[in-house]
């Protein structure tokens, strides 16, 4: 199942976050705002990183925060958060992070079409830098439309 169309509501630009926990929490709030997850999902995403380490920093400057499908997920959804000041996740290669994607997935079996769309956008290495520099939601929507 593909992700629902991205809207300006799902985008938070130049957010203030003191550390990676705060940055992931912003992504959680956005997912809650767009109806993709309950308020508890942000803490679940933080818990995944506490449990398994900073592996969610899957490319230079980019974290793909997510938890498992579960009761905190209401619908598939993607949040895009850029940070006013990049934060460190403690990743050996890809810190500091300036773009945090929050991903909520309702059913594991059907999520590959959604992440394939993300690969279409981010396999172009300029996408992360362009997102970090974006000042309007319209710019972000244009970058993400590359899929």
């Amino acid at each position: 199942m593909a992700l629902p169309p991205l809207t300006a509501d799902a985008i938070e630009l130049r957010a203030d976050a003191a550390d990676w926990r705060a940055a992931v929490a912003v992504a959680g709030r956005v997912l809650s705002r767009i109806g993709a997850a309950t308020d508890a999902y942000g803490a679940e995403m933080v818990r995944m990183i506490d449990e398994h380490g900073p592996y969610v920093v899957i490319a230079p400057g980019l974290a793909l925060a997510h938890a498992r499908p579960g009761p905190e997920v209401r619908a598939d959804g993607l949040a895009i958060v850029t940070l006013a000041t990049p934060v460190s996740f403690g990743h050996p290669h890809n810190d500091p992070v300036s773009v945090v994607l929050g991903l909520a997935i309702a059913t594991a079996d059907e999520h590959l079409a959604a992440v394939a769309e993300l690969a279409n956008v981010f396999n172009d290495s300029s996408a992360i830098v362009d997102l970090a520099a974006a000042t309007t939601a319209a710019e972000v929507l244009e970058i993400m439309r590359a899929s």
Partner: protein
Amino acid sequence: MKIVTICGAGIGSSGILKVNAERVLRRLDIEADVVAADIGSIAQVAADAQVILTSAEFVDAIGKTFADVIVVENYFDTDELTSKLEAALGD
């Protein structure tokens, strides 16, 4: 051939690795089943795998295996995936 991509949740990051590994394998003309899984199911899923793709954080948890464990730094860099898969499968 079977290739397993591993992350903490079995969705998201391992899904992206699966999608990009399939793209690279198609380009290299290599036939393989690529399965995305979470670290908790590694024992069942990877028992018959030739290659495991993952992040550095999971190498210890994967433990002893007959598969080649490939650590990927940039999940969106298909050049990195190409050279690492070629090195692992090229013999």
